């Protein structure tokens, strides 16, 4: 079932269709959360929370609005928001991820743990590059959808994705050099 049909059915029978929405999109929600937060148990909580938020929203929305939803972009937005609120709640409990220290993080954490693991490099990207990179490649959204999700102009997003890729390359190369010299 494609998303247009799924949205149409959600609009007419939420309880009968929601499980299909969950099964179709749960891996995406989890992958986005995992690559943003770099912690599997946090990502499980966030994906679950996002799906519950989606249900509660669909309960309130008029049928017309549900039928017109771009489910992929909409769920990505909810997942991102759920990840942000989880990070906010955790901010008191443990030190935040270093957001602007790709190089320093891989150096301080040591090549043996961070190494060239792409997931760790993504997690170390500054926030403004990380979300566009995750949505563009991990989740395969179009720039127009990412613009919807993040509320940034497409041109800005393309530049941020470009810059993000460059940072990942640099970090990857640095990590490899470190591995060689170790």
């Amino acid at each position, binding site marked *: 079932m494609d998303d247009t049909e799924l949205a149409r059915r959600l609009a007419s029978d939420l309880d009968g269709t*929601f499980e299909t929405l969950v099964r179709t999109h749960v*891996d995406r929600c989890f992958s986005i959360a995992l690559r943003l937060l770099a912690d599997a148990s946090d990502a499980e909580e966030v*994906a*679950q929370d996002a*799906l*519950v938020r989606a249900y509660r929203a669909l309960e309130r929305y008029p049928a017309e609005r549900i039928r017109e939803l771009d489910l992929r972009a909409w769920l990505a937005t909810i997942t991102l928001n759920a990840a942000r609120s989880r990070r906010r709640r955790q901010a008191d409990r443990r030190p935040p991820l270093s957001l602007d220290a790709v190089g320093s993080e891989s150096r301080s954490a040591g090549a043996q743990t961070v190494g060239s693991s792409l997931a760790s490099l*993504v997690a170390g990207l500054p926030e403004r590059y990380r979300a566009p990179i995750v949505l563009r*490649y991990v989740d*395969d959204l179009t720039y127009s959808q990412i613009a919807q999700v993040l509320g940034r102009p497409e041109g800005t997003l393309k530049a941020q994705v470009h810059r993000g890729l460059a940072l990942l390359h640099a970090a990857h190369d640095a990590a490899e050099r470190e591995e060689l010299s170790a």
Partner: protein
Amino acid sequence: MNANVTNLEADLRELRVSAPPAVARRALVAVGLADEYASVASPIGDVLVAWNGRGVSFVARAGDDTEFERRFVAEVGRPLARADAVPDRLANAIRRRLGGDRRAAVPLDLRNRTPFEVAVWRKALEIPRGEVRPYGWIAAEIGRPKAVRAVGSALGHNPVPLVVPCHRVVRGDGTIGQYSMGGPEVKRRVLTSEGVDVDALVDLASRGVRYVGSDTTRIVCHPTCHQARRIQPAHRVPFRSLAAAAADGYRPCRSCRPVAVAA
């Protein structure tokens, strides 16, 4: 460099992963489209309790998990999975409720039940631990005084026995009546565990006594009402009917609100 970028993009796509199965299941449970169950200690031994994000949905004594699941699916019709334990907050609320604390709010999921059934179950929740009321009392209290048999039937279909204390509702003639969790003997055990003197109750019933009054306050109660239990033996006056009590100048207790009920 271009080849590298292409590799990097391909590698990034590889970061898509499958969610652990528990994520979908827990989301469906949270919104009430699936349920989980685990066992809980009760006055009649361990019982199995099913719940979802809306509340407790099903309680039963079952020989084993398979039987419980079969009954749940037949009666409720949602997917069900075994959990290790009831979540702490819910478990505490259930424990307090079974212990007689009526302030302990146990959320209940009573979707797809008739308004009449739900009214009967909500009313049963008001009967204090250690007390019983006749079926006719529930019927009168929910404004359907003639629907005594329907009340009995609704109580027999109570999906959450013990949590909704249908065992505190007895026959109009004072005998303890049927019980969906395993017949009169089990009902007697639950009531005894709550402090009801079942033998005394049955004894009163066999002598035709339905109400008890105090000749000092001139108030008449159901025999198990906490007000009635405070009456000194010397001042305790048995009545066969409310009409007889009224004729002697007794008014109904405002706490247990006795009503005239047929056997």
